[in-house]
């Protein structure tokens, strides 16, 4: 592929700088979570995270160089690979905290369910792009997209990972809403979904039921499941307007916060940086999300639009659900905060997703030969 100078001039520096800034804030934040630990392994989490960022940036660079149209030709291949990995997880996966989510690749723990979030977006985009119709979709025309989502959702629920399964459903619903669906079909889908809720309640594991119950009344179990929510609210609230200062969050440093490097990383930030810091971070996320939305709006073709929209909603929902959970507005479902939570899988996948957005953005004026 010949280098096109326009690619350089149209490169979306704003997006890259935003992502790098947020990732850097995340790095500082993870350093803080491990600051008071005497365990060397956890102390060096921020170094690992930095490594993941670098790996992510390398992969991002590769993704940028290859036209997204070319990449999307292999959408179903990527999808199939990620499903395979999920199957491997369910058979040979590594178990922590009562769920089986990881596979070990060359000494690295990898979470295929994170990868699925992206491959599903590309697969759905590819499907809708291939089966474009001018009018709104009927329910039966959405059978294949639902099937594409349903397979990984079931595999992930089996792990069990309620949050990621929910996330996949939200992504597909958002995409369908975006692409257009007949009101009747939407109503039917909602009815079916509504019927599934009581059934799925019985399929939930006890700890998941407990989490939903304690979300409704966290104070009922202050040292059990509600502990996470209460400690998180205390951490965020105790930060006040200006915060307790970097590395000075007592909730964080005294390890009152559970899973503070991963799912509750925002409460660490909010405790140490206060409302002002949290507001700045929130504004950065808002700008990031709206910027991504702008990329989707201005993308050259439907495929690019769907991919970038998919990535936008992925980031949006993760930010909304994670922070909503940390602030005690939503149940604890275990969804990472993009670019801030510790975790290689999430970071690498999001970097690749960003690469796709940059890819789409800089090729918006280039008509395919």
């Amino acid at each position, binding site marked *: 592929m010949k280098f096109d100078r326009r690619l350089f001039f149209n490169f979306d520096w704003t997006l890259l700088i935003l992502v790098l800034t947020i990732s850097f804030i995340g790095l500082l934040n993870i350093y803080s979570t491990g600051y008071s630990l005497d365990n060397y392994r956890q102390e060096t989490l921020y170094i690992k995270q930095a490594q993941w960022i670098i790996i992510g940036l390398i992969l991002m660079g590769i993704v940028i160089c290859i036209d997204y149209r070319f990449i999307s030709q292999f959408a179903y291949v990527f999808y199939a690979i990620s499903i395979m990995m999920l199957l491997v997880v369910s058979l040979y996966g590594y178990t922590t905290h009562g769920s089986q989510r990881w596979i070990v690749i060359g000494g690295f723990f990898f979470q295929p369910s994170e990868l699925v979030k992206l491959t599903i977006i590309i697969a759905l985009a590819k499907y809708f792009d291939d089966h474009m119709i001018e009018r709104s979709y009927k329910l039966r025309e959405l059978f294949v997209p639902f099937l594409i989502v349903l397979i990984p959702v079931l595999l992930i629920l089996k792990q069990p990972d309620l949050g990621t399964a929910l996330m996949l459903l939200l992504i597909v619903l958002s995409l369908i*809403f975006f692409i257009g669906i007949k009101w009747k079909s939407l109503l039917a889908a909602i009815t079916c979904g509504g019927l599934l809720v009581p059934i799925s309640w019985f399929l939930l594991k006890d700890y998941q039921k407990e989490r939903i119950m304690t979300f409704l009344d966290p104070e009922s179990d202050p040292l059990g499941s509600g502990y996470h929510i209460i400690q998180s609210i205390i951490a965020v609230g105790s930060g006040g307007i200006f915060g307790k200062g970097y590395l000075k969050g007592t909730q964080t440093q005294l390890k009152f916060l559970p899973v503070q490097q991963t799912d509750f990383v925002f409460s660490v930030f909010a405790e140490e940086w206060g409302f002002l810091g949290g507001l700045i971070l929130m504004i950065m996320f808002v700008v990031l999300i709206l910027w991504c939305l702008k990329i989707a709006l201005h993308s050259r073709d439907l495929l690019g639009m769907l991919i970038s929209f998919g990535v936008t909603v992925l980031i949006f929902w993760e930010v909304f659900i994670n922070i909503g959970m940390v602030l005690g507005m939503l149940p604890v479902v275990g969804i990472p905060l993009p670019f801030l939570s510790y975790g290689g899988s999430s970071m690498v996948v999001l970097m690749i997703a960003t690469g796709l957005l940059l890819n789409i953005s800089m090729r918006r004026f280039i008509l395919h030969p």
Partner: protein
Amino acid sequence: MAEMHGQLNGPEPGHFRKRFKIIFVVMSIMLSLLIMRMWHLQVIRGDELRQRSENNSVRLRKIKPLRGLVLDTNGQVLVDNQPSFDIMFVPNRAKNINDVGYRLKNLLAARDLELSTDIPPLGKRRWFPPVKLEKNISMEKLAIVEAHASDLPGVTVEVVPTRKYVGGEMTAHIIGYTGEISPDELKRDTDNGLSVGDIVGKDGLEKYLDPYLKGKSGAEQVEVNVLGKEVKVIGKIEPVSGYNVVLTIDSFLQKTAWDALKDKAGSAVVIDPRDGSVLALVSSPSFDPNLFNGGISFEDWDNLSNNPSHPMGNRAISGQYPPGSTYKLIVAAAALEEGLITPETSFNCNGAFELGNRTYKCWQKHGHGRVNLHRAIVESCDVYFYNVGKLVGVDKLAEYARGFGLGQLTGIDLPREKSGLIPTKEWKQARFGEAWQMGETISISIGQGFDLVTPIQLVNAYSALANGGTLYKPRIVKRIELADGRVLKAFEPEQKGRIPISKENIDILTYAFWGVVNERGGTGYALKRKEEDVCGKTGTAQVVGMPDSDKARKRSLSAKFRDHALFVCFAPYKNPEIAIAVIAENAGHGGSAAAPIARKIIDAYFERKNLEHKKSQPVVAVNQKLQTGVYR
């Protein structure tokens, strides 16, 4: 295909543009909801939540104070403090709980040792609170655990100050014991700032003087993380030790009394008639209060609380017995004071007393013949007192009994004192709805029937007679001292009043009680010392009334139904220094079963006194040395 897609770009997606607008608005609203929630938590509720976060991380840890010491009247330590080395297991510090348990077991088994409690299996639990594996471990175990500390993560040795009851069983009923505060006690305590885990007195003086003994807890502010692991100490308030308590108890007499009584059930109380100071107070069977240190084991508690002979009960103050013939003091005093008899008044005793169609026997089957008051007391003639009691009547008897402090609390500084019972006509009407029968007056005239007294009441009544008529409140606590020996509070002898009897009559009765021990035919003649200085009165308290025809069966009666033996005495005859009451349960006749116990105490008392007299200077020096030894 490519061209077709190209056409989609730009102008066409009008409906997408509209949807983008909707999505833009929805996303903006949802994200601003998050910011509003942040505002709510951090700005509006910020102060409240900051408060909570501080409570969260800074934990207050109590430091238990040392309880005060308890000393006897000569400064000998009765209750001390000692460190107890307890093995604790803190699960969250151990990586593999089963592993640690296995290793600990093996280490101990190598020296033929074992722990009283095993590390509990984790089971389905992810976590359990720290457990005490064994309290007060031996030095050998301590050495093993300390030496292998690094191989036993989670196993720690805690040093806890605990009570050391030097007197053990001997002083158990005076001192009582301590234990962790119960939920009930915690509820009742609203302003002393006690909290869960605090050690409080549970019985005896430990309970009665708890406010003085307990001291003041200190506290440490420690920063802890969510695992409860301490990160650093922020502030410390030193605990304040409890005050020392000096008793009127004389260890030497206490030990003598205990040694004399311990094989029987019953009690012995020794007081100084001159001021009501309790010199010795023992109750048998007893218990070892050291068992309660750091929490009594279930097995030990079961043994103590379900023991049919109630070793935990203090018989000296809560054992209620019919006074038997010791009650004749009251009957005689009432009759003399009321002018119903003179010392010369005599009655003929042929072994029985007729009232209506009932016969009341004298303990001397063949009768005492004609006896006056003196001989009636010396020989404890029942028939004489049936006659006198009938003259006095139940209500007058009760009046005098109360005048001597019987049938009411003496007010001794010990918990759970019982009042005994002195019946009146009114009482019977109220209690049973029945009129008083003359026959019942006959029974109470020799201290049977409804009459019930406690040993402390009995000795107190006789010591009032001995000191010339002053009824004291028995005093067991002499003073409360600060750690440096300064007196915080002194408990002075407390007079409750005079017994309702003239000096003249006191002398008549005292002489009669001298005769009991020192005259031929006296029921306490066996106690006679060559100094002829003891006055006393025997008593036999019937456990069950029994017709004479059954006397033969009496010998084969199980011990449970045998009579209680009583003996009250004071000495010397002129200016008495000690008064003693002894009750030996189910031991038979007072003169033969209870008097020898009193005799041992009296002998010991005077033996020591003579010894002290001979070499008074050196003894004072020894005492001083003892005192300085105590106030470390």
